């Protein structure tokens, strides 16, 4: 019984290590694909449209609601101390440094990451990726790299959009609904938000975009090698769920790490 436990523990440990190694090599091959010719610009645009423009609505509404809630909550807390004028600063800093990058990455993972993972998983189990290999077409250049680059470009842009819409939401809730002075809202924001804060937000969004696309494409691409995922359609559904959960957790963990290192 104890032997069995030790064997299982060892096997799990080995498979985790194998998985990490495989994902590391996957990342290198995906980045190498940027430099292999012919690069698929058409596919890059298509993926940017899918990940970026396709996520516009969900990002817009998430940002508007987050900003408005922040405006209301911020007003409620600050008003107690007579610090209504700090509302602009509180809303903007929270959005730019934390909520914007994190929520954008989570939304992209849920909307585009899951779809990309499932698409690659189905391509793998229906031998379409093997077919690319057999035609001597590098699957990384053909399939993975355009998705990577599209995510690296669009996730920071979506984050900026999230920040702008969120601040507008905070303005509507705080100034238009709760009556905070418009001038003090913007002045608070102008005096407290520094370039460093904006840079931190952009770096975070870039790292989160990489994490989400790396995990979602990697899990889908290697669906047939993932221990305990099962076979066929079931394996694709399990791995897609796993990819979204794993990328969401990674975003949250890296959010803390990056804040701790860069703040």
């Amino acid at each position, binding site marked *: 019984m104890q032997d069995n436990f030790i064997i299982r523990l060892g096997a799990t440990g080995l498979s985790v290590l194998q998985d990490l190694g495989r994902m590391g090599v996957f990342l290198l091959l995906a980045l190498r694909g940027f430099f292999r010719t*012919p690069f698929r610009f058409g596919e890059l645009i298509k993926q940017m449209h899918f990940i970026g423009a396709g996520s516009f609505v969900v990002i817009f509404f998430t940002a508007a609601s987050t900003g408005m809630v922040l405006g209301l909550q911020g007003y409620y807390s600050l008003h107690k101390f007579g610090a209504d004028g700090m509302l602009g600063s509180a809303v903007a800093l929270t959005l730019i440094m934390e909520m914007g990058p994190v929520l954008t990455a989570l939304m992209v993972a849920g909307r585009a990451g899951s779809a990309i993972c499932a698409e690659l998983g189905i*391509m793998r189990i*229906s*031998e*379409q990726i*093997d*077919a690319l*290999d*057999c*035609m*001597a*077409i*590098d699957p990384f250049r*053909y399939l993975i790299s355009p998705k990577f680059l599209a995510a690296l470009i669009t996730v920071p842009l979506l984050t900026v959009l999230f920040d702008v819409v969120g601040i507008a939401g905070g303005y509507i809730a705080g100034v238009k609904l709760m009556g905070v002075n418009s001038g003090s809202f913007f002045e608070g924001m102008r005096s407290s938000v520094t370039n460093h804060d904006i840079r931190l937000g952009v770096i975070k969004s870039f790292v989160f975009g990489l994490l989400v696309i790396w995990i979602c494409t990697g899990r889908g691409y290697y669906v047939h090698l993932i221990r305990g995922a099962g076979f066929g359609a079931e394996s694709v559904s399990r791995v897609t769920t796993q990819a979204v959960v794993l990328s969401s957790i990674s975003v949250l963990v890296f959010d803390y790490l990056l804040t701790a290192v860069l703040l």
Partner: protein
Amino acid sequence: MSDTAIEFKGVTKSFDKKNGGRQVILDQVDFKIPRGRTTVIAGGSGQGKSVTLKLILGLMQPDEGQILVNGEGVAGIRGLALERLRTRFGVLFQGAALFDSLSVFENVALPLRERTAKREGEIREQVMGTLAELELVGHEDKFPAQLSGGMRKRVGLARALQLKPEIMLFDEPTTGLDPVMTREIYQLFARTQEQLGYTSVIVSHDIPKVFNLADQVIVLNQGQMDVFASPEAIQWSDEPHIRRFVGTTMGDIYQSRMVEGEGSIKKNEQGQQI
């Protein structure tokens, strides 16, 4: 150039079993596939037919032994050398492996667009020529999901032939097709091989129909391979496991011929071999 297209020398391949231990699929296997001819690899399910194809293509690596394509070792090669090797092959997958988000035309044009510097006009001309040969004109704008099984196989064949392969590998090409379509597909293979002169390797359990195409038959059994110079040779083998294999796959016709011809197989009243 030698007469051998592909050669396996002492190849062993095994996999981890789910409940521990290893399952040996190929055990010290040796065989040669002659150039420009058709070799059929036959055997029951799980005997390693598809594994053999994947080893030839470098999609899997052998545990031991050497695999030679045109005299060059392929085990362990990577990168550009592997890409160069693969351009010699055309593969028709069991499920055709068409890209389901691309139309028939785009599927067939894919290897030309990605692997050659041909202009769009030339690509269109070549693809439409192949589609006409395989009676697929009028279907070029359809998507794979809108095609029948036989049509999907033909599109897969059209795509595999675009880069003029030296060696065509067919993985269970008639699975899921009705007898008429099966015959048509085999006729198509024979016709395209005659035109292009490629070496053909067909992995199939479609016995005995596929034997009509075969110049050489390889039977996989329990990790071993038995090579027969012709489909006739397999039918008259004295090996018990081959007799059993042929008996189950070719049925009573073969058995009664054995009884009449050789008198070496006894049958019970129900006509089953005893």
